[in-house]
């Protein structure tokens, strides 16, 4: 469910109740529950939380209804043909094939194609340069997301990873890049997907019209842990977003002991924490890591135990990950680093 608890597009419970009264029995209930479980939640194109996603959902339902009508007509014709004893001439059959098999489908497809093309500008809105207030550069890397917030001049204000924050009711302009292979940026609740291609910058504008946490995924197979490359989008009130942008640029308090262990073991060679000697750019930025809701690009819950587990053996959680395992470090060091990261603001 979304933050405000609404899910108007699809109501699985109603449909389950309906099937329970029907003669299809328990198997229908199970089937309905399984097939409709994707109708709501933070990761559903059928539960839109923004205008772009609403248009995508609308397009889906128009195509679905058109498909149901055509399928029903074909099945009805099939049943009629199998039960009717009357014999028709070959000429009549040929006429039916010509009209129902060629001419009508061509006209219907033409209408649906026109509708889809007409809808396209709304599905993929274009924001002129002077209206690109919230510019966020997202780079896909195997298997995580580098997120940079840009200022009006296009300079990087700060960097983070695997989590994006946007203001509700204001369009966010994403500049999508990739450094290794092709990835694809997709937040089903907010809009359609956009590929991230090495050497190119693809723009995408998304807007959330209600507060909430939405899940995004990589929608283009990019390697072993492609399915474990997710991120979250937090849509917050504009005032809260502005305050967060300012706050994020000022380094928060650091636990000196935890930071010392972090630096002693060389973590800073790959990871950066603003305001410290850790300035590595190979792995995800860890500043304000404690604010994130998930770990390892949406793969693990954000608990101290999971952080320690991931530091020790990242390959066991994410096959193909570039981070080497640190299981050889003293257990106390790993625990200290995990505790330090968990509280890092």
């Amino acid at each position, binding site marked *: 469910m979304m933050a405000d608890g609404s899910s108007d597009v699809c109501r699985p419970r109603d449909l389950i109740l309906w099937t329970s009264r029907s003669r299809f029995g328990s198997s229908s209930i199970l089937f309905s529950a399984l097939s409709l479980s994707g109708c709501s939640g933070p990761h559903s194109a059928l539960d839109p939380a923004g205008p772009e996603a609403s248009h995508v959902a609308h397009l889906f339902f128009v195509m679905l209804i058109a498909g149901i009508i055509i399928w029903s007509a074909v099945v009805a014709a099939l049943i009629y043909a199998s039960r009717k004893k009357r014999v028709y001439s070959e000429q009549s059959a040929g006429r039916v094939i010509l009209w129902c098999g060629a001419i009508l489908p061509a006209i219907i497809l033409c209408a649906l194609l026109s509708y889809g093309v007409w809808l396209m*500008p709304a599905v993929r809105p274009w924001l002129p340069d002077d209206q690109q207030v919230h510019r966020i550069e997202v780079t896909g890397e195997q298997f995580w997301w580098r997120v940079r917030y840009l200022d009006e001049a296009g300079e990087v204000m700060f960097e983070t990873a695997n989590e994006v924050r946007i203001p509700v009711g204001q369009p966010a302009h994403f500049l999508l890049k990739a450094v290794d292979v092709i990835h694809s940026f997709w937040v089903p609740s907010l809009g359609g997907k956009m590929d991230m291609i090495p050497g190119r910058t693809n723009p995408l504008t998304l807007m959330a019209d209600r507060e909430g946490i939405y899940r995004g995924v990589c929608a283009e197979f990019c390697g072993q842990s492609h399915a474990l490359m997710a991120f979250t989008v937090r849509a917050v009130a504009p005032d809260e977003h502005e305050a967060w942008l300012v706050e994020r640029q000022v380094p928060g308090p650091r636990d000196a002991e935890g930071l010392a262990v972090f630096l002693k073991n060389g973590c800073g060679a790959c990871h950066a924490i603003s305001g410290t000697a850790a300035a590595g750019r190979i792995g995800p930025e860890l500043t304000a890591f404690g604010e994130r809701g998930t770990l390892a690009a949406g793969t693990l819950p954000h608990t101290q135990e999971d952080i320690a587990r991931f530091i020790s053996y990242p390959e066991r959680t994410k096959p193909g990950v570039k981070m080497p395992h640190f299981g050889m470090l003293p257990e106390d060091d790993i625990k200290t680093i995990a505790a330090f990261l968990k509280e890092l603001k």
Partner: protein
Amino acid sequence: MKSVIPREVESLWTLFTAPTVWAIHFLGCYAAVAVYCAKAASLDFGFAVVRLALGGLTVLALMAIVLSAYLAWRQWGFGSGDPPHDEPTRRDRTLFQGFATLLLSGLSFVAVVYAAIPLIFIAECQR
């Protein structure tokens, strides 16, 4: 009266006429829009000119396909015989080719119309 169109066509190439016209139209549309949008800043004319030119190309393509369909229909004997025309005779071979060409012309006609639909809805180049 002497006809401009040959009375009889013996070549297999007539079969490919309509799909070739579709392919040229398809490439023409995509190449023209892509080149225009890449160079729009240095060109003196707007997208309406491209839209109009491609509209003209679409009409020409559809006319060529209709002509191809008419020749195919004629070759098929204006529908005087029913398919499948599978006897190993010269007549059946000609009729089969005519019928197949007619079907391909229909398919190509629809394909050209579908390829031209975005021309109506494209607002401008995004940059």
